[in-house]
């Protein structure tokens, strides 16, 4: 039957074949450097730079969290990301709630102010914030880094949460109140469960954005504050130990595990 045919049948055999080929090549492209990172975590580099393949070794994996600047930087990045994600999730979710639930003057301006940071190159955001701190005489430190991270994460959270909660049936709240629930009980039993998945997704996104941010952090960090990306950048000029590859591989494995667990958890929720 015509309606059962996959829509791309429309493209004809040659079209379909080349479409699949390009898509497959796209997936290969996505994983080339990842394969490189994993492979070079088993390299036995000759000098300080783990760039040329010399031979296989498991030594790099013996103690991946050797105390040192890389591990310190990783811990600092985790802290910054946790604080920034928490703060941005609160600020951004409140904005999203206001935009979806209430009518008020100035909604257009609020939306514009949320989108602008996303259409501003990082280099502009980073350098402008640094000129502000310089202008008012605030020394750059890990605090200014967190201020910057909260800033760009808040926009992402507000827009993500807004998109997720836009279509909800808010009359459930009225129903709860009509049945005698207190406002707090209505919020905790109706509103919160409705908005939690969207907020969690936004929090994870913020965490990922913060932990990987380089350009804005470079402009706003103090001289001794090395987040993980900053450490990699300064290391790239002097030495590139295989530990970087090991840590990157571990981060990758943990993220994939979280992704799989999340998918399984969601499936169980959907089934229940």
């Amino acid at each position, binding site marked *: 039957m*015509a309606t059962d045919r*996959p*829509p*791309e049948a*429309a493209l*004809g055999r040659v*079209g379909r074949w080349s*479409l699949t080929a*390009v*898509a497959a090549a*796209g*997936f290969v*492209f996505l994983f080339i*450097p*990842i394969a*490189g990172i994993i492979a070079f975590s088993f390299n036995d580099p000759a000098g300080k730079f783990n*760039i040329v393949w010399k031979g296989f070794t498991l030594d790099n994996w013996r103690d991946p969290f050797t105390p040192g600047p890389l591990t310190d930087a990783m811990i600092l990045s985790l802290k910054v990301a946790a604080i920034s994600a928490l703060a941005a999730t*609160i*600020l951004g979710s*409140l*904005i999203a709630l*206001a935009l979806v*639930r*209430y009518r*008020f003057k100035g909604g257009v301006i*609020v939306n514009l*102010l*949320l*989108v*602008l*940071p996303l*259409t*501003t*190159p990082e*280099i*502009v955001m980073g*350098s*402008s914030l640094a*000129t*502000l701190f310089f*202008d008012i005489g605030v020394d750059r430190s890990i605090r200014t880094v967190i201020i910057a991270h909260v*800033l760009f994460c*808040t*926009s992402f959270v507000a*827009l993500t949460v807004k998109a997720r909660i836009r279509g909800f049936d*808010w009359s459930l709240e009225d129903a709860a109140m009509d049945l005698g629930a207190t406002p707090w009980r209505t919020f905790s039993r109706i509103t919160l469960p409705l908005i939690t998945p969207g907020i969690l997704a936004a929090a994870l996104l913020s965490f*990922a954005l913060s932990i*990987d941010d*380089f350009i804005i952090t*470079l*402009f706003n960090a103090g001289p001794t504050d090395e987040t*993980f990306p900053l450490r*990699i950048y300064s290391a*790239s000029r002097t030495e*590139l130990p295989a530990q*970087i590859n090991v840590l*990157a591989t571990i*981060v*990758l494995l943990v993220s*994939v595990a979280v992704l799989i667990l999340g998918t399984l958890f969601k499936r169980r929720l959907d089934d229940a």
Partner: protein
Amino acid sequence: MAADDEGDRTKRRAGFVPYALLSPGMIWLILFFLVPLATLLKTSLSAKPSRFVPDVEFGWEFSNYTDSLSTYSEQFIRSFVYAGAATLLCVAIGYPVAYVIATRGGRFKNVLLGLVVVPFFTSFLIRTLSWQSVLSDNGPAVFLLERLHLMGLLDAAGIAENGRLLATHAAVIGGLTYNFLPFMILPIYVSLEKIDLRLTEAAKDLYSNGWQAFRKVVLPLSLPGVFAGSLLTFIPAAGDFINAAFLGSPNNSMIGSVVQNRFLEQGDTPTAAALSFILMAIITVGTLIYARLLGTEDLV
């Protein structure tokens, strides 16, 4: 209507509530996004009396703009050419990937989307450094292409330069394409996913052939995704300097490299500020024109 009820109800109890919810986040955005843009503008019009003292003095120094434009026009043009090429490549690779996931993913849709995102769980810098070693002179890419006797061809095509893949235009554009590809794939996927694909069947029932059905039905409906993806790719690519630093030579430096160098290494904040402002102005104007051309002004 539900919407009207909601409007009435919220009007009743709204008052200061929405503003209370908005203000913490909005104050943050105003203090640390809008105010800095104003100080950036001020700095861009300031003079720097001494190389050794970081202080600047405001004084309507429009020469900062004319000087930096004439000195760095090459880097500006290169940034936009690189970012434009990377964006086109992202559409060329990203559209088919998104299309195949959306139309043929079946039960594996989420797995395939996961595969698109997974590489980006590793750090941006580490991924780019990995490309550096893949493309390096002793690396696997050059080795493989030499064995296949393809290096000469790539040299002729202008992709490789003198038998090298690293430190070329193509390497920087390729790095930009790679690093921003998911920002193209995901919005296109979202817009394709929304399309009722039976529309293509309807088009064919009305005697259009497959290509016409795609061009007249699917493509226009997926343009908002292409639009959003292009902005999310082009804007960060135009301001990036990591790909140029790791995969290019000094001949491939982009405007981000100049801003970074002027600001953080030379301490020449007025020039860096002027360059940042020009970059932002060009991108804002470009975005508006692009929105008008594609007719998708309501991005949000």
